[in-house]
């Protein structure tokens, strides 16, 4: 899957989870850039990503996701 498609899908997931259509998702986007990205919504975000891409993250991976860049590379690894 191409990066551009991943970002496009991620953007739509972010819009749904955070109810904000103005969020622009880039590799460096992290919790501090998005209002409402707290530990509670982090789980919702991860689950919505899992559903959307049809992937499943391990507990170790759940710990290591800090930015959209981390998430993207994990998705790419899973889909490879």
């Amino acid at each position: 899957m191409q990066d551009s498609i991943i970002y496009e899908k991620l953007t739509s997931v972010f819009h749904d989870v955070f109810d904000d259509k103005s969020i622009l998702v880039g590799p460096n986007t992290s919790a501090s850039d998005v209002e409402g990205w707290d530990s509670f919504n982090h789980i919702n975000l991860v689950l919505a990503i899992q559903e959307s891409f049809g992937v499943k993250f391990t507990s170790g991976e759940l710990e290591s996701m800090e930015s959209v860049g981390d998430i993207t590379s994990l998705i790419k690894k899973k889909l490879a």
Partner: protein
Amino acid sequence: MVEMTWLRNEPEWNVRLDALSVDSPKEQWRGLLRLATCRIDFVQTGKLDRAAQRLAKQGFPTPPDLKRVKLALLGSSTLRHLISGIRIAGLRRGFWVEVFEGDYGQYFQELTNTQSALYDFSPNVVCFAFDAEFLHSLSNGKTDATLAHLRTIWKLAKGAFNCTVVQQTALPVFPDLIGSNEHRLLDSPQACLSSLNYALRSAADAEGVDLLAVDKYAALDGMGIWHDAALWHKSKQEVHPVVSHKYGEYVMRIVGAQYGRSSKCLVLDLDNTLWGGEIGDDGLQGIKLGYGSAVGEAYLAFQRYLLRLRDRGVVLTVCSKNDEVNAFQPFDEHPEMLLKRADIACFVANWNDKVSNLRTIAKTLNLGTDAMVFVDDNPFERNLVREHMPEVAVPEMPEDPALYAQILSDAGYFEAIGITQEDRDRVTQYRANREREILKDSVTDISSYLIELRMELSWRPFDETNLKRIVQLINKTNQFNLTARRYSEAEVKAIMANPYALTWSVRLKDRFGDNGIIAVVFGKLNIEKDFELETWLMSCRVLGRQVEDACMNLVAKGAQDIGARRIVGEYRPTSKNSMVRDMYPRFGFKLAETDAEGNLKLVLELKDYNVRKTFIMISEELSHAR
């Protein structure tokens, strides 16, 4: 399967939600309620919940017909992710739910400290949702000790808040140590949870607590879907967020049942719903029904399920586009047809549109249309009913008739917390009603009809034996209901305990059978020696039979006996109760007060009351103990 497959799919759901924001607040609420009845996942549930909370916070009042309920969710791990599902499942069935989430593990302090935030919140429903780890650690897997603790907190909650209590069963999250015969390893955590879940059933029954059987639902969907060990470790969420919308649905089904809001009537299509094919075209020999073909057996199995629902009190009716003679034929003549015409309380077969027919059925049976579930294989008919009667529940029906029974069961429309004798007797009661109609046609005047009925009215104050039926009537009766106030079981119990209150539950028998409890009246004596009637309602089945006259005599006598000088009655108009607007004036009450909402207060001087003459024999089963 995390989808709620019985709900209708709305492909444009997200677009519609976004589009709502430009509407007027009233339209927005309407839109939100409709979106709540669509097939949505946990992300959409969260979005819808945020939209509803935003609207409420902006100061736009929730629609007045939403019942407000305060629910406290108390547990031992993260529960926050379950709240939006509960609130949206509330909207789906006409409740506005405020949820209190206890700090985890703090439930005991919250329950015992009268200064706690929980006391401040004062819930109508307390739901205990403990995780399996916690339940196991409470007493190291010893069922009796765990149950003893649960009984203690159930009593604490009921005593403190006069609330109903829901107890979640244990989710069997522990991996097996043995396998099929796990129960032989007495200290296996999984075996301990199984015994606990088993024992919980009778313990909850004994204490009047209703169970939230997550163990059952997780088994249905798959434990792997309901629980994810990785999430448990990461965020202490025992119930997986992807099923949170279903969890909320299950919670609110129980709350709905506690408030008497479950559906009570099934409206069934015929062709391709009760049998395969079309009776008008295919004829008696051509329709698919009965043994010998998988499809024929599938319809048979569905009919068997419907009969079982009927036996526990669901009213079965038919609404079909057919000539009546064709529609009757399978019921009367098909050798394998399980449903008979006597099982159908109201049978409508004609070529009118189904919306009008549904209204006719509701009227004939004196049921609210919001108590109906409409089952039809034809998407056109389903959408027509949804469009014009949003209050009617309309399940999406699967292609395969083999799945019909399961979809009705999954949809949980008829969730019940107990089955009353009236539920079981309902079919015979509707049949007796038909016989009464025949008598009515054979006599010439109303007095001879009433005499011929040989009516016997018996009454007693509310007590444990009739409590469930009373709560059911209080929450379901819309038309003959002077105040339309709704009360939970706990609230009714509080009235029973009030020494200044008088309560009547009234039963009517006649030569055709027992109608069961058909009227509920209660009121309180105030310090001015006025007897204030808070609730007066009657089942519409017995309209026009002088029951209200007989009840008025009872109330006047009761009020006099406790020293009242006047009776104060109230009429609070709703969209459905205009039929009783003039009841109090008919008995000689004088209008005393009208408030801004059009609620009336009416007063009767007891010394002026003329006892009403009726053709009803009265017997008192138990008197008001003084």
